[in-house]
C-alpha cells in the first residue's frame, strides 16, 4: 500500500490529536507533512488555561469561608449532601468543558497528551476542586518534564486521597501509593520487590493534603528512619524516592513503551522503543522531545502503523465532532455515551486507567459506536442505560439529560453545520465523491464495500449524497480505527 501525503497527514492528526477538522479537509492532501508537524508543536507551545468550573460555594468552603448566614456553623448532613452533589455535577461540567477543548482547541497535541496522562495517572476522586487541580497539573506538564509531572501528581490532593496517602502514617503505613507509583506510574511490574514497596511507603509517610487541596508535609507522622529502596540506603523522604525512581533507566523504558503503544502501535517494536527510551533518559525526561522523535520518525508513517488503532470512546466522540461541526443542544448525552462505551473521563475503572485497544470492543459497545452517527443524523432516541455507579449519581442520574424523547430515551439534539462540510467537497466530481469522503474519514488500507454503501446512500441530491455517505461511512467498523 502506498502511503500518500494525505494518509500521512491524517495519521498524524489522528495520533497527535483528535483527527482532522472539517475546516482543514481541503489542505490534507496538499500541505506537507513537516508543516503539519511544526504547527502541531507550535500550537501547543503555550501553556493551557486553567479550567475552573467549580461552584463558588465549594471554593468558599475550601477556603474556610462560609456563605453568609452560616458563619462558623458546621454543615449539617443535608448541607454536606448538597455539597457532594454539587461536586459531582461540577465534575460533569469539567468533563464537558475538557471535551470541548479537545474538539476546538488548536492545542491538539497538548490535549491528546493530557488524555494519555489522564489514563496513566488515573485517579477517581469525587472532589471537583481536586479533580480540576489534577487536570491542570496534567495539562500544564503534558509536554514538559516527566519528573516534574510525576512530582506534581504525587503531591496532588486528588492522588493523595485516591491512593490513601493521607492515611500513611509512621506507625500505620499505608502502602497503596508506594505500590502504584512503582507499578503503574514509573517502572512497571517485575522491577522491584515487595520490600521496596514497604520501604518506600515509609518514605511517603506524612505526605498529605488539606481540605483546600494543598500539599502538606506532616512532620510528626513521617518515619525518619533509614530505608532501603532499590538497593539504596538512606533517610529518604518521598521526594528522594521519586528521584530514585527517575534514576532508573527502566522508568524511561516503561513510559516510552506505554506511549509507543498508545501513539504508534500496540505491538511494540523493541528497537524503536530502545532508541526512544534512551533519548528520553538522556534528555532528563523531556516529553516534548520524545513526541517529536516519534512524529518525525519515518517508521511512524509505515503502512503497518496506520489505521490499526482502535479509537477510544473519547477519541471517537471528539473525532466525529471535529469532522462534523455541530451544535449540541443536549451536551450531556456525551456523558451517557462515555459511560455506555466504557470511558467516562475522571472515572477510570481503577488506578491502572483504561486498558484500551481491543478491550474497548465488546458486542454491545461496538454496536453502539456504529449507531452514534445515525443518532446524530436522525436526532433519534437512545434508550440505553449505563451501569449504575453510586459514586457519581446520588439519585441525580438524569438531572442533566433533559431532552427525553417519547420512549423515555435521550435525544442527541445535534445541529450539524452541513453547509460548511459539504462545501469542502464542492470541487470533487460526483463519480469521485464517495472515494473522496471515504479517504478523508477512513484510515484503514482496504476501502469499504461500495456496493453495500451505495444501497444505503440517498443519491437524490448531491447534498444528500454527501450527508448520507458520510453517516454510513462513519457507521462502519473501519471508522472505529485510526
Amino acid at each position: 500500500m502506498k502511503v500518500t501525503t494525505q494518509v500521512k497527514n491524517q495519521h498524524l492528526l489522528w495520533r497527535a490529536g483528535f483527527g482532522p477538522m472539517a475546516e482543514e479537509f481541503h489542505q490534507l492532501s496538499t500541505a506537507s507533512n513537516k508543516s503539519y508537524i511544526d504547527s502541531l508543536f507550535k500550537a501547543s507551545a503555550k501553556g493551557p488555561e486553567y479550567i475552573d468550573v467549580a461552584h463558588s460555594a465549594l471554593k468558599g468552603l475550601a477556603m474556610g469561608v462560609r456563605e453568609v448566614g452560616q458563619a462558623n456553623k458546621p454543615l449539617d448532613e443535608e448541607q454536606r449532601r448538597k455539597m457532594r452533589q454539587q461536586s459531582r455535577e461540577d465534575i460533569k461540567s469539567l468533563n464537558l468543558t475538557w471535551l470541548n477543548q479537545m474538539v476546538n482547541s488548536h492545542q491538539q497535541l497538548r490535549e491528546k497528551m493530557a488524555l494519555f496522562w489522564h489514563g496513566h495517572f488515573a485517579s477517581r476522586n469525587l472532589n471537583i476542586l481536586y479533580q480540576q487541580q489534577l487536570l491542570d497539573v496534567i495539562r500544564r506538564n503534558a509536554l514538559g518534564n516527566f519528573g516534574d509531572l510525576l512530582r506534581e501528581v504525587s503531591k496532588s490532593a486528588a492522588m493523595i486521597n485516591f491512593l490513601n496517602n493521607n492515611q500513611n502514617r509512621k506507625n500505620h503505613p499505608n502502602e497503596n501509593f508506594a505500590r502504584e507509583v512503582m507499578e503503574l506510574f514509573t517502572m512497571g511490574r517485575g522491577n522491584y520487590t515487595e520490600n521496596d514497596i514497604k520501604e518506600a511507603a515509609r518514605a511517603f509517610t506524612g505526605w498529605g493534603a488539606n481540605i483546600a487541596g494543598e500539599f502538606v508535609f506532616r512532620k510528626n507522622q513521617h518515619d525518619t528512619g533509614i530505608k532501603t529502596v532499590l538497593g539504596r540506603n538512606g533517610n529518604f523522604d518521598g521526594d528522594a524516592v521519586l528521584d530514585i525512581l527517575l534514576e532508573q533507566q527502566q522508568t524511561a523504558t516503561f513510559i516510552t513503551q506505554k506511549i509507543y503503544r498508545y501513539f504508534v502501535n500496540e505491538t511494540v517494536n523493541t528497537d524503536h522503543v530502545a532508541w526512544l527510551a534512551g533519548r528520553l533518559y538522556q534528555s532528563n525526561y523531556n516529553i516534548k522531545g520524545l513526541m517529536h522523535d516519534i512524529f518525525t520518525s519515518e517508521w511512524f508513517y509505515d503502512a503497518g502503523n496506520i489505521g490499526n488503532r482502535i479509537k477510544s470512546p473519547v477519541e471517537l466522540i471528539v473525532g466525529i465532532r471535529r469532522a462534523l461541526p455541530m451544535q449540541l443542544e443536549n451536551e450531556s448525552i456525551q456523558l451517557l455515551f462515555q459511560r455506555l462505551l466504557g470511558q467516562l473521563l475522571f472515572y477510570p475503572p481503577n488506578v491502572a486507567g483504561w486498558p484500551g485497544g481491543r478491550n474497548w470492543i465488546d458486542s454491545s459497545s461496538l454496536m453502539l459506536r456504529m449507531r452514534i452517527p445515525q443518532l446524530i443524523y436522525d436526532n433519534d432516541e437512545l434508550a440505553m442505560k449505563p451501569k449504575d455507579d453510586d459514586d457519581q449519581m446520588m439519585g441525580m442520574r438524569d438531572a442533566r439529560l433533559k431532552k427525553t424523547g417519547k420512549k423515555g430515551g435521550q435525544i442527541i439534539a445535534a445541529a450539524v453545520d452541513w453547509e460548511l462540510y459539504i462545501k469542502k467537497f464542492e470541487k470533487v466530481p460526483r463519480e469521485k465523491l464517495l472515494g473522496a469522503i471515504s479517504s478523508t474519514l477512513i484510515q484503514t488500507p482496504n476501502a469499504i464495500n461500495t456496493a453495500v454503501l451505495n444501497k444505503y446512500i440517498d443519491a437524490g441530491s448531491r447534498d444528500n449524497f454527501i450527508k448520507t455517505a458520510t453517516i454510513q461511512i462513519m457507521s462502519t467498523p473501519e471508522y472505529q480505527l485510526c
Partner: protein
Amino acid sequence: MLIKRKQFIQLGSLATASMMLPKFLKAFEQPALVPPGNKVLVILQLSGGNDGLNTVIPIRNDIYYKARPKLGITKEQALTLTDEVGLHPALTGLKDLYHDGSLGILNSVGYPNPDRSHFRSMDIWHSASNSNEYLYTGWIGRYLDAQCKGCDKPTQALELDDVLSLAMKGEQAKALAMKDPRRLYSSSNEKYFKDMVAHHAQDAGERPVDYLYKTMAETVSSADYIYKQSRLHPTKAEYPKSDIGNSLKTIASLIFSDINTKVYYLSLGSFDTHVGQEGQQKRLFTDMNAAITAFVKDLKANNRFEDVLLMSFSEFGRRVKQNASGGTDHGTANNMFFVSGGLKEKGILNPLPDLADLQDGDLKYKVDFKNVYATVLNKWLQTDDRAILGKSFEHLNFL
C-alpha cells in the same frame, strides 16, 4: 469454520432472517437444545477485594477481636452458623441457605506468592495463571475454546455487564457481554449492519479490522437468538431493583429457556474498603443477599436449583489488622461461597483461617483457587480441566 450439512438443514424458520449472514455464522442460529439437567454455572465476582474475615466471622477468636477493635463484628451481631462461625449480619438469606444445606463455604482460598494489586490479582484469578506468569486468556474463555473448536458460540458464556471480563476471553472464542437481551437485540437489529457483515470478506485475519467484523458478526446473529430465548419463559418472580437483582433476574429467565448458555458472569463492587468499611460492605451485602435470596427462591420454584451453581470470589481478602481509617488494606487468602441445590458437601468445607499463623500479617492460603476451577470444570461443566488449566489440579469434594 467448517459446517456440516446437517447443521444447515436445521436452520428452519430462522433461515429467512439469516439469509444475509455469511455461512459460517449460521451455525449458532440453531444451537443444540439444552439437555435436561443441564448444569449451569453462575460466577459472582466481588470486585475490589472483599473482607473475608468480616464475611465469615471467627466469633470465638480473640486474635480477630484484638486485631479489629473497631471493625470486629461481635458474636451478638453476627448471624450464627456454628459455635465458632458467624456470618455478616446482612447475609440473612445465606444463613438460611446454610441451614438448608445449600451453601458451601470454602476458607483460605488463594495462590502462592499473592499479589496485592487489584488488577494483577484479578488477572491471576481471571486467567488462572501463576503469580509470575502472564496469560491473555481467561479460564472460561479457554473453556469456550475447548468446547467449540472450529465454530463460534459466543452464547455459551454470557456476562451481565457492558464490558467483557478477561475471564471470558479465549484464544478463539469470546463470551458475549450484555446488560440485557432486549438492548442487545435492538442495537444490533439493523439491516445495514447485517448487510455489512454479509459482504465482508470471510478470511478472518489478525488485524484489528478483522476483529471488529468478527465481533459484529457474532453479535448480530447471537442477539436474535438470546432475545428470543429470553422471552420464552421470562420469570414472573419478584427481584430487588438493584443491578445485581436485575442481572440475576435476566439469568433466571435464560436458565428457564432453551438457551445453550453454560456460564453466566456478573460483578458486584466495590469492596475496596480502605476507608469506611462498615457502611460500604453492609450496603453491598444487603443488595447481594436480597438478590441471591430471590434467585434461589425462583430456581427452587422452577425445579432448577439442583442444576445451578452460584460461586462467589474476590481477587483477594484483606489484612487481618484494621487500618487507622476505619477500613482494611489489601490482603491475601479469602473465602468463597457455593450456592446450589446440588452440592455434595455443604456447610463449612474446611477449617477457618489460623489467625495465629500469619505471613507478614496476612492469611496463608490453604486451597489454591485453581483446585476450585478444576473441580467446577471437571465435575460441573464436565470438561477436561487439565487442557484448560494447563496442568492437573486435585479435585475437591463439594461437587
